[in-house]
């Protein structure tokens, strides 16, 4: 037969039951109100703070990387722009040079044409002048011939030739 007779620790006594209920319930109430409650709150607050801080750091990092990407993009854009600008400048230079060349050529052509025309004009003028001079000379020669008595055909011819020789066509 199972018997615990006289084994005092296993005897349920009303006094101990009463006091241990009172003490434990009081302990439970006091601890939850003044100790475990605030501690649990404190710990969970700190945990949420840490979590928030981590999330914040994460978002800051994301922001940072976003900014960096943006910067890079801006930089790339600037670089591209610079390249375009350079290219444009180069193109402009080339075109300007080409234009200038063209213009110069045109100018040269114009100048040379002008010169040619001038020369032609001068030439014409000279020819006119020569013609005039020749005319004048011929007239003079004729005058002189007329004035001079020419004895013979030979004399005529020599005289004319001397006159012709006198005409120096520059």
């Amino acid at each position, binding site marked *: 037969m199972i018997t615990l007779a*006289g084994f005092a620790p*296993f*005897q*349920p006594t009303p*006094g101990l039951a009463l006091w241990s*209920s009172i003490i*434990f319930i009081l302990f439970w109430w006091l601890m939850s109100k003044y*100790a475990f409650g605030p501690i649990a709150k404190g710990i969970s607050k700190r945990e949420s*703070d840490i979590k928030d801080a981590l999330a914040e750091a994460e978002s800051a990092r994301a922001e940072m990387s976003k900014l960096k990407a943006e910067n890079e993009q801006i930089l790339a854009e600037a670089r591209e722009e610079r390249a375009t600008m350079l290219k444009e400048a180069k193109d402009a230079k080339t075109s300007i040079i080409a234009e200038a060349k063209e213009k110069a050529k045109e100018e040269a052509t114009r100048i040379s044409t002008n010169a040619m025309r001038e020369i032609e004009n001068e030439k014409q003028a000279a020819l006119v002048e020569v013609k005039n001079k020749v005319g004048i000379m011929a007239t003079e020669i004729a005058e002189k011939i007329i004035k001079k008595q020419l004895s013979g055909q030979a004399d005529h011819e020599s005289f004319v030739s001397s006159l012709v020789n006198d005409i120096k066509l520059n």
Partner: protein
Amino acid sequence: MKIKALLLVVMSFCLVLSYAQHNHDHSHDHSGHSHDHSGHSHDHGDHAHGASATHAGGHHEANDYSRGDCGTPAKVIHHSEYDPSATAIHHVSDANVYTILEYTIPLPAIIYNKERGLEFFSTGKFHAGHHENGHYGYKDYVLYEGSIHRIACENFQPQEHFEVQGFDMQKVKDSKGKDIEKRYAIINGKGYVLEQRTIWDGGLLGGGMTSFYDLSITKNVVSMILVCLFLFFIFRKAAKAYAVRDGQAPSGIQSFLEPVFQFIRDDVAIPFIGDKHEKFLPLLMSIFFFILGLNLWGQVPFLGNVNVTGSLTVTMVLAILVFIITNINGKKDYWKHIFNMPGVPWFVKLILTPVELLGMFIKPLTLMLRLAGNITAGHIAILSFVGLIFIFGKSGQSMAGAGAGTAIAIPLTLFMMAIELIVAFVQAFVFTILTASYLGAAVEEHDDHH
């Protein structure tokens, strides 16, 4: 979940059986002891106490504490022999005085007596001495082995102050053939039968209803108060630190308590209870630290070897509390799982429902027995090893034997204390984790059908 419930049932049966076995052994010891004792009293028959002779002679009609033995001439006999089992049991029992080393501290006694009502006095009136036996009596109360007994004799007139010459105890059989301990106080050379305080065991554990209730502040109560105050003090300090050092890393007592707190929260409350853990967290924490604190308090050798968490009354109170809280928080699913397990054929339900219903009561029962059993067993083991010194030393007659006993007892006790230190934590943890699992099962709401 079901497997766990079944395992628990099996475990509790094993526990009950092992306790039965354990106590069976004990009862063997006891009967052996009582044989010795009766032999002893036969030897000293005449001068020991006349009363015992009558008993040995087959005075069996006496039920519990018969008033027939009152005032029979008796002499004080000094049992010089060391009784290890009685000593161990005495040391793990609650007491109305608190003995630390050589000093016996009196405690307030509160007695409810059917005839005289509530009575308050100090157990200092008993002048407790060796074995926590009182040298004096107060009214009709005496102190025997640390606990208040009342003289159950009509012919004894209550007195303010009387001398008690000694005590004696007899193992006798009552009318039903049950072993009972008959305790006597010897006053003025006459033996008077004593009765114990009321014990709520229905007479099963050697107690029963008597004429008075002992509601005193006992050694266990004092220990509980001290441990709870200490715990409250340190936790209050830590709690204040959370307000003062808001948002900072823990320091001092805070950093010592916080990991334990978080352990209970993250590894006990949250996995078992889930979202509703915050409601039960203070209870789990209180249970854990209450048990742990008292377990550790009881292990400090010079603090009187108090056995609070090893006394069934305290674990019973905790278990009943857990039972009540579990069941008042039981949700629909919890009751459905007990009375009408979903997804199970009807013939299985015929078996399962009684098992589940039994399980409802077995759960707190196992909580109660496991803790009390483990802690008491540990205390008894240590006391037994210490007892080796006295056994080897033949109760102080052989110094060499005592030396040898000490040489054996020290490593054994050291080993046992180390084990007990682990047990203190493990049992507090087990009680808490099981409470959490019962609460978790009660508040669980699930729509799965298994």
